[in-house]
């Protein structure tokens, strides 16, 4: 790995941790779903950096777009907020 790649990886890992926290703790489910989408986005970057372009592409197509969409459809069909 070159230095740029290592720095990118480290930044991605930090973003992953923050987004993970946000996804699990946030009461607004739409926000939480967007956070999972961010996890997938960053994850697909990390996959690319780890020389797994196939997995990166799959994660991009399925994780970022489709998973997020089905989550959002569900949240729209049910309740948006997680109550206490």
């Amino acid at each position, binding site marked *: 790995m070159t230095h740029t790649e290592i720095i990118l990886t480290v930044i991605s890992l930090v973003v992953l941790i923050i987004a993970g926290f946000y996804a699990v703790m946030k009461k607004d489910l739409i926000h939480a779903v967007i956070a999972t989408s961010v996890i997938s986005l960053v994850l697909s970057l990390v996959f690319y950096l780890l020389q797994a372009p196939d997995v*990166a*592409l799959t994660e*991009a*197509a*399925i994780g970022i777009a489709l998973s997020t*969409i089905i989550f959002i*459809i569900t949240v729209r069909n049910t309740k948006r907020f997680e109550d206490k």
Partner: protein
Amino acid sequence: MKKVIIIGFLGVIAYYLLSAFASVPFGADLIKGVKDFYLDKSPNDLKVANVVTSIVVNFRGFDTLGEVTVLFLASTALGSILYRRRSHDSGLNPQRTAPEASALVQTGAKVIFPFTIMLGAYIFIHGHLTPGGGFQGGAIIATGFLLMLVSYRKFFIEHNALTWIEAIAGSTFVILGLLGLVYANNHNFLENFLPAGKLNDLLSGGIIGIIYVAVGFKVGAEITGILDTLLTVKETGLDPEEN
């Protein structure tokens, strides 16, 4: 109290797993296993440039058959869980109550849609050469249909066509496998029986390319069906038949 127990439990799991993975250093090439065989055979015998594709479709093709089945299963199970009652007289599906998207979105969707389909098709046709393949291409095609579904209220998926595509693409996979029993050298299920061609040619890799195209169609139809089912369920309110 329950939280404390669960966090303690998670701590125990984390400790043991970390201690297990600590002996697997990141980036080290520890093993001499099947991977060297794959890295050698894929370009030389199968003439498939993308080793992941050759593993997914050929060496471990049976897994992929299972994977396609899982998606088919998910869409069937979804249909069985969220069955719809469509009114037969009007062509419109009354359950979709989402507001019409703005003209900007609609025009944009119309422009982007063909390109999305083309991109998806490109990805699964070149699955054995470049990153990506049937699953990724199919998912991208489904995204294109999703775009149309959310921007036009009157855009409806032709379910008959979806059923036909699903059935034909899925059975193509299995039948290609069964043909291997008859025509291939070792008479194995899913064995390649077509000429392998030249490395990095579009028409190379024998049945691998054909299988990935079938997978692409199947996955695209499957995911489009899943999205359509989820989008057209009744949006709010209790269902009278449930109680």
